């Protein structure tokens, strides 16, 4: 499938370097870094080639206290948000206003609006662009290449290797899509997917909803992979049916016929194969500073002394020090200071429903923030009364945006504080200087909020049942 999408977007190959010039269907521009690209375009007097295929989305600075410019944390950020709006207007690029009810995190609203479609080659400056692969699109984070794409509608890339991760079997009770991807990253290692695009396959993946597939593809980059992709199927087509920007009528029939040609052929060869058994999985919690550093919730903080590789041992020792952890401590003995539920990993409606099912009728023991991934997710959640469940349980209910995933809107975790977070990165300082992030699923995060410690959510689920 990687090869098919690649070939259908190949403009030309530079024989000397082996680099391929690929045509880009969609480019998403966030408030965080796009100003660099506009600076380059203006200083070198380039025009934007296909502005209608571009979308500006001010997600990183969107305030969680409200959806207006005055809710943006400070003047520096307001300048950038206004700047993105002005830049998009100047070049004729689609733009989502902060107060637009559809506004949200790029990687949530791309699929939600049908901006992301199967077989597309989609780019965004942000690393977690791999998310969009859940719909069968090839999607990369491109960092500083945005100016090039805007001026040429193309990207130079080296051919990538295909890695198939096959997950088979039924997911056990209490095991979320988040736990599946954390287990995959644990298996591959934080740099194990380097130079590859991961194709997720197998019965477990096929049984996932689109929202769950988005969670899985989102974190492909945490295994070092360039992207992640799931072959489109009936689940995908059903999801796309209602989407605003998805082709309708005769165009939809034509598109469907095209989309059905995308999945890998039966005998397709992969450069690497990895398989996992879903029935063996459990809810996971990270302990270190990469998403590969995870153990099942019933596990313990690993002991660096048992690690034979000295470099690795050093990394573990530093991670334990930063995280304030002692080797051998049971994960469930850790107390928690803060909880964050949201992000492009786990800020969709199914995530909020799952978290609410745990929060319902309980009380938060620590500060807990819930931030929907988009305005539409927020509206849907409020219509279902999820906001009331969270508020009654003492959780804070925020406006859509990236929020505490990266803290660029001002929502941060305190120094030395332990936060259970549904986001995708537990790097040093990711949620604020000194913040200690543990990655978990939405239900695990909610369980930690209502108990004040790392908790095996399955116990709460049984209690309820």
């Amino acid at each position, binding site marked *: 499938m990687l090869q098919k999408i690649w070939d259908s977007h190949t403009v030309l190959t530079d024989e000397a370097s082996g680099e391929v*010039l690929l*045509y880009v269907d969609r480019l998403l521009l966030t408030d965080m870094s796009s100003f*660099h690209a506009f600076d380059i375009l203006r200083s070198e007097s380039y025009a934007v080639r296909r502005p209608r295929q571009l979308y500006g989305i001010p997600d990183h600075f969107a305030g969680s206290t409200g959806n207006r410019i005055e809710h943006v944390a400070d003047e520096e950020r307001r300048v950038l948000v206004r700047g993105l709006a002005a830049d998009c207007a100047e070049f004729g690029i689609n733009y989502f206003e902060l107060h637009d009810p559809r506004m949200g995190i790029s990687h949530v609203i791309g699929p939600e609006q049908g901006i992301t479609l199967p077989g*597309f080659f989609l780019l965004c*400056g942000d690393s977690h662009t791999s998310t969009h692969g859940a719909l069968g699109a090839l999607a990369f984070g491109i960092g*500083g*290449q945005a100016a090039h794409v805007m001026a040429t509608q193309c990207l*130079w890339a080296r051919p990538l290797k295909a890695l198939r991760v096959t997950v088979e079997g039924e997911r056990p009770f209490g095991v979320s899509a988040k736990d599946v991807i954390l287990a995959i990253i644990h298996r591959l290692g934080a740099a194990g997917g380097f130079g590859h695009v991961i194709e997720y396959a197998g019965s477990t993946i096929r049984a996932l909803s689109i929202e769950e597939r988005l969670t899985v593809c989102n974190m492909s980059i945490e295994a*070092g992979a360039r992207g992640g992709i799931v072959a489109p199927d009936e689940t995908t087509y059903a999801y796309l049916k209602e989407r605003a920007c998805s082709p309708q009528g005769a165009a939809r029939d034509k598109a469907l016929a095209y989309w059905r040609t995308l999945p890998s052929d039966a005998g397709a060869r992969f450069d690497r194969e990895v398989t996992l058994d879903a029935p063996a999985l459990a809810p996971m919690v990270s302990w270190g500073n990469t998403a590969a550093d995870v153990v099942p919730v019933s596990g313990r903080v690993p002991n660096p002394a048992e690690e034979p590789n000295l470099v690795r041992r050093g990394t573990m020792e530093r991670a334990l020090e930063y995280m304030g952890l002692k080797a051998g401590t049971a994960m469930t003995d850790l107390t928690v200071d803060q909880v964050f539920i949201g992000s492009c990993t786990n800020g969709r409606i199914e995530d909020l429903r799952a978290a609410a099912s745990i929060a319902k009728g309980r009380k938060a023991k620590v500060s807990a923030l819930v931030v929907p991934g988009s305005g539409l997710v927020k509206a849907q959640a409020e219509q279902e009364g999820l906001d009331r469940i969270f508020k009654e349980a003492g959780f804070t209910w925020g406006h859509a945006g990236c929020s505490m995933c990266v803290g660029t809107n001002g929502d941060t975790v305190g120094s030395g504080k332990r936060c259970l977070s549904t986001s995708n990165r537990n790097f040093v*300082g990711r949620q604020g200087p000194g913040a200690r992030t543990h990655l978990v699923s939405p239900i695990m995060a909610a369980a930690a909020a209502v108990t004040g410690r790392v908790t095996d959510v399955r116990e709460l689920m049984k209690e309820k049942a």
Partner: protein
Amino acid sequence: MQPFVKLTAIAAPYDRVNVDTDQIIPARFLLKRRTDPAYPGYLFHDLRFAADGSERDFVLNQPAYRGAQIFVGSENFGGGSSREAAAIAFSTYGVRCVIAVSFGDIFYSNCIKNGILPIRLPNEAASALRAQAHAKPGAMLSIDLPAQTVTGFDGNIHRFEIDSLNKSCLIEGLSQIALTLRHRDAIDAFERRYRETVSWV
């Protein structure tokens, strides 16, 4: 962009693996434009400076390595968040070349875009260069991009690979946009064909 052909300069060694872009430039500096005069100070900010602004024990704070134009790292250098600011921080600091065993993909291409030469070397070669730089602080390393070689302080020559497109951009100091727009006709022709099939783009 400043062309890169040959460089003989001080090399700063840093042994840690998995140096991610959050460490290279903490998130709170990402909103700064590259014209900000304080930008060089953002490079490895939290590793270089304590909260009160005093200097920590970090390689770039040691007198012999101050202002190093070459930075020698280890495995998985520049992984993590795709922030272009990581390459801009190196560039404004004056680093023209980063050597490592492996790089985060995005960081690698951001280096090229900012006129920094990223060099991948096998572990033994990179470790040897770091060991030499530790042993002789402030000693110079020589890099020859046309010949694709790094010459260590011990006189050993290490060859490295770089694709010809990146190489010519760096040597000519040309932006990639200018290079790509030479293919404008091919892009136009492709787009016409593509839209016949994928009319909903």
